[in-house]
């Protein structure tokens, strides 16, 4: 083991951490709603199809990249795509973190509802009043946001081992909670004479299956729910042990994610179908409404008297809280990892990231708390944030695909230059396309051999599906405006203009950062404190920035053939890159790396 490297204690640890990251509120409160709105069992077909076409292949790529690069997203792109493309990693990290700003608030809601459920605070109340009162009381919302961030800090402060144990514990509890809820829900649904919730969830409506919208919704649910392309798998792969199988891990994670979705979907739908006269109106309603307004009402009809009601509320909202917390952990870790990679101490990075997430999440707790047409409060600022950054994830996925394409191309060019093969499209098909898969996936470590289909998925299916998702999303968004071009007015917080504006500014900023922050750093050469000579250009010199790879013992693998791998500033944790001592005068504390 290289000095100062960090890794999960077991393979199960990695799996649980990855599952924890993948399983979030999307599985429990978004999935049942999507099933309801998209024709029950009809929806399961595209949803399952895209698990194998989109989510798992992309997670395989992420694991493979992370396992070889052994850095967070910024470093991974610097190594895999080249120095000029480190900003892609920053984009990936930023999207995840920006979502984290408000996701901490949302996770806080879940914890709040767990406490309400556990204290019988949801018994005999108007759930709308409870929700509206809660959302309009910033002190409450901020308190629970703070609790979530505090738990997250505790989980990741100590690095991989702590992340691992928290995730294992929370995920196992989540399974228990969800199975408890499911059992009670099935009991409810069965006691009214039919399992109509379950029947609906598994019945195909063929006319809906022919609609493109069903497939697009299945794809987006699969993409979001698995966190595929988010950079999370890259981050956790940093802590992989040497001999782990990226493919099996990816498949396990994807399948486990969908398993939880099925359980949560069955539980929620069965309960709603048992308790509601028009279950589909409930289940297709607004998202927050179903979770925080409808479900407490439905759970109030749980079997087994007061005990049953308490159990169902508590179990469900505790499970939901755990799902949100483990996702929060991966979000913060993704950000923290990037700081640590660049030589910043872990405790500082954790503290800084947590503080930023708390402070930048604050506006989502109290700004623009509005009332919708049905008298339900909703946080519009938070919603606008989600509106802006939600689809940014798609580009993180695109960048990952881009790194695969680029590697394949470089490898193919190299082979041509070496005179090994002829050029041409057919030659690229034969030798180029499989480059990434041959060198990083089908290594000796894996039990499952990934076939050539994966190449086709990454080279053809991915760009097509990416385009379909982006075009349909923006197409629907723009066509919902009248006149359509008013969608591009950036002052409209729900339009397309504001998304493009924020994306443009962030991308331009990050591309600008690339050479001044990410891959190079300014070094002060003048006399006295650097503040005194800040504006004298002659005092400053740009030097290459170091990057510390977290390589556990025995996991060393060459990165030299990679576009950004041939860089003396990229070293393993414990090594000291040239020029690093000048700044800090000491080697970074390996224990906390």
């Amino acid at each position, binding site marked *: 083991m290289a000095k100062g490297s960090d890794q999960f204690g077991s*393979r199960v640890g990695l*799996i649980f951490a990855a599952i924890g990251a993948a399983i979030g*509120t999307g599985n429990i*409160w*978004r999935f049942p*709603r*999507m099933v309801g*709105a*998209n024709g*029950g*069992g009809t929806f*399961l077909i595209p949803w*399952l199809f895209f698990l194998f076409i989109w989510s798992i292949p992309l997670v395989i790529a992420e694991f493979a990249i992370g396992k070889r690069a052994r850095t967070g997203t910024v470093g991974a792109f610097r190594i895999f795509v080249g120095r000029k493309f480190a900003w892609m990693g920053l984009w990936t990290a930023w999207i995840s973190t920006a979502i984290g700003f*408000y996701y901490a608030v949302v996770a806080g809601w879940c914890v709040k509802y767990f406490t309400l459920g556990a204290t019988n605070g949801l018994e005999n109340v108007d759930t709308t009043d409870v929700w509206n009162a809660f959302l309009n009381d910033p002190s409450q919302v901020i308190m629970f946001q703070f609790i979530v961030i505090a738990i997250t800090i505790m989980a990741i402060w100590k690095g991989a081992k702590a992340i691992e144990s928290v995730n294992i514990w929370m995920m196992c509890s989540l399974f228990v909670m969800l199975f408890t809820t499911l059992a009670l829900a099935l009991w409810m649904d069965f006691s009214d004479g*039919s399992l*109509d*919730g*379950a*029947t*609906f*969830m*598994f*019945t*195909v409506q063929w006319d809906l299956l022919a609609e493109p919208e*069903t497939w697009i*919704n299945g794809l*987006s649910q699969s993409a979001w729910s698995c966190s595929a392309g988010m950079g999370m798998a890259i981050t956790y792969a940093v802590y992989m042990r040497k*001999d782990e*199988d990226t493919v099996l891990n990816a*498949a*396990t994670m994807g*399948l486990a994610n969908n*398993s939880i979705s*099925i359980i949560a979907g069955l539980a929620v739908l069965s309960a709603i*179908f048992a308790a509601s*006269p*028009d*279950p*589909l*109106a409930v289940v*297709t*309603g*607004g*998202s*927050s*409404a179903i979770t925080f307004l409808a479900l407490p009402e439905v759970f109030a009809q749980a079997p087994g008297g007061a005990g049953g009601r308490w159990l169902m509320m508590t179990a469900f909202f505790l499970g939901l809280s755990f799902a949100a917390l483990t996702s929060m952990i991966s979000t913060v870790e993704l950000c923290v990892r990037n700081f640590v990679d660049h030589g910043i101490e872990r405790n500082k990075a954790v503290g800084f990231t947590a503080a930023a997430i708390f402070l930048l999440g604050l506006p989502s707790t109290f700004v623009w708390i*509005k009332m*919708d*047409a*049905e008298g339900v409060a*909703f946080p519009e600022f*938070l*919603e606008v944030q*989600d*509106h802006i950054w939600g689809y940014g994830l798609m580009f993180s996925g695109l960048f990952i695909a881009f790194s695969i394409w680029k590697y394949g191309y470089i490898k193919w060019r190299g082979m041509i230059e070496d005179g090994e093969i002829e050029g041409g499209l057919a030659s690229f098909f034969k030798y180029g396309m499989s480059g990434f898969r041959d060198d990083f996936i*089908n*290594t*000796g*470590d894996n*039990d499952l051999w990934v076939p050539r289909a994966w190449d086709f998925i990454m080279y053809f299916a991915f760009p097509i599906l990416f385009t379909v998702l982006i075009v349909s999303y923006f197409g629907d968004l723009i066509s919902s405006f009248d006149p359509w071009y008013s969608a591009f007015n950036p002052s409209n917080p729900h339009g397309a203009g504001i998304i493009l504006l924020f994306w443009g500014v962030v991308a331009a900023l990050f591309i600008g950062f690339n050479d001044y922050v990410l891959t190079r750093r300014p070094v002060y050469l003048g006399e006295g404190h650097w503040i005194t000579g800040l504006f004298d250009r002659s005092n400053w010199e740009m030097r290459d920035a170091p990057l510390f790879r977290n390589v556990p013992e025995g996991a060393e693998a060459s990165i030299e053939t990679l576009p950004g791998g041939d860089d003396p500033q990229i070293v393993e944790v414990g090594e000291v890159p040239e020029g690093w001592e000048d700044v800090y005068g000491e080697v970074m504390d390996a224990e906390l790396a």
Partner: protein
Amino acid sequence: MVSTMRNAKAILITLLLLNSLALTGSLGAMAQEEEPVGELPEDIWSDDYIYQNFPWYGNDKLQFNEYHDYFTMKARMLQLANANSDIMEFHEGMPGGINDRGIDMNSVSYEGSYYRHASPWVKITGGEHGVQGGECNDFVGDCGNYADRPDVMLVGNHHAREWMSYEVPMLFLETIAYYYGMDGIDNDGDGLYDEDPWGDADGDGVLDDDGDCLRLNASNQDFNGDGILCGPGDLGVDEDFDEAWITDLVDTREIYLIPMLNVDGNRYDREVFCPDPAWESCSGGGWRKNLRDNTLTGVTPLPDVSEDVDEDCDGVDLNRNYQFEWGWPLGATLPLIPGTCTPSEDERAGVSNNDVYTGPFDTVDNDGDGKINEDHVDGKDDDADQQIDEDWDGGNSEPETLFIQDITEMNDDDGDGASDFKATLTWHSYSELVLYPWGHCTGCSAPDEAELIYHGAMMAEMTQYQNMQSSDLYPTTGDFCDWHYGVHRSFCYTIEIGTAFHQKPEDIKHIAVRNLGVPFYMMEMADNPVERAQIGIENAQRAQWITSPENMTIPESGPIPINMCVSDVFPWSNDVNSSHVRWRIVTPTRVQSDYGPKEWIEQSWQDSEFVEVDNETCLLNNGANGTLIVSHIDVPDDLSGELHYKGMLGTQSGTYPFEYPASGQYYAAAFPYRAPFGNIIGAFLLFFIVVGAVWGGLGVALKIMMDSGKDKPQLGKKEAQN
């Protein structure tokens, strides 16, 4: 002293009155509460009322137990006019002079061609100066003209055999003569005053406003035997009208009552064609036309050697002889050559091939421009010479129709160049219908159709007759109402009373009573038919309703019915382009924002037609009965969401839309998912496939993981192989 006594008497009477009012009221209330077998007529009314003795008494003709003939009718008209000379003046024809078309007319011009009588008529108007103190009209020969009083023309007996059509105007005349100037008569002797005027005065959908007929036992509720319980003409229905209202109407209107226009024809029908009793000798037919000698006019090639009436071929249908859209082929038949006309025996039974002869073609160059018939009467300038309808094809060729034309066109008290008649009525029989223009075209509509329908519906409600466009019964040409409405924009109605041409004598009274309110209604609305209709429609429109979301019943499957209750007087069109439920389905988006408000997708608006529900009435907002119409909205079973809808009614004349709810709003009703949630077998199948793939896959993955943990050496081997 005398005056004090009078006062005391008055107070006593008032007290008694109040007492009886209260008593009757409480009795009535009790009776209604108990829902008993019902009362007998003698429990409620005076004997005179029960036996339908009109208060002016007199012989059977005056009591409407027997028909008047021309002579007795005229004598009675004269008698009444003399007895009420302040408000009534008797006339026969007109003195004449240069008429509106520049033709010199005289009193002979209006005499029937055979018996040489001019139509008798009564001018009725009251007020301070009465029927003789107003402006004099030399042409018409009366001095009861006032520029500020609307003129009403009421014409009976265009068609000779339709005897009830002059009996009804006679009852109208008797009624005015008797009740004018009176206040608060207890017409039915029940102790109440003016409690039950004509029609549904209180708007509750029941003609019997005071409910006394409804108190009777069932066997007494259909006095006139028409099958309608407590309908018009039954005891206790519309029996106690407001005399002061009649007086007011007479004082503020000029009424031209012409009970028997076709004296020639009527005399012939009675005296020659249908030997007494006419209801037996002419059971299905009779003499219809006037007595124009068609052969004498050279229409047929054979010379007419006899001055006798040729029963087969003579006569003109007066109600096809007006100039407006005259002679166009709808319904007109030519006088046929002698020998080809239907024999008179058949005509007595109602079969004829020339009963609707329009009269001869006009052969005169009416405007002297050298061309003949280049601009027929249709309200348009056919020859584009800046004059309208100046050279007609024919029509108004008969003394009777000329009389109507001249009395109409020569009445312009306010000097505005237009006829004063804005409301006209003609009685016919039979069929129990109220007909409004047009008659000359089918599938067409008059410019004021909504308003025409409205007043027609009001009179139809009063008589329980059916209201329809004239041409929907059958198309006509050159009829009275098309001419009045088409040329003078006069709101003109043809009312087809009764159930036979020669109604049996015992039916005269109740049919006349049933139709008595109509001429008064015409008088009332004559001041501004359009505005009165529009206000009425507006009121009716407010009383109408569409099912609100709270009251909506959503069926287990299939279209969702949306009911509307429309007033019978509201002239809604059942064309889907005019009247419909405008609706759209609004469903939640299939991808909801995770944290935002509920998002909806609105489908585009669609229109769905209304159909009338047979045999179903509904209660309007004003308590009256309305017609139930329903629109079936095609909402798929497998959707859940909101139905946005509103009722939009258009009138038959194209006023559109009357909206429910009003002004751009709509109702939103939530509708549930109604399709089956799926079938259990298919669900099990998919369950095993999905769960097999996901959980089975997970199991396999975990197994491989566990195995690979156990035999690490194998891994090394594989690596070596690679």
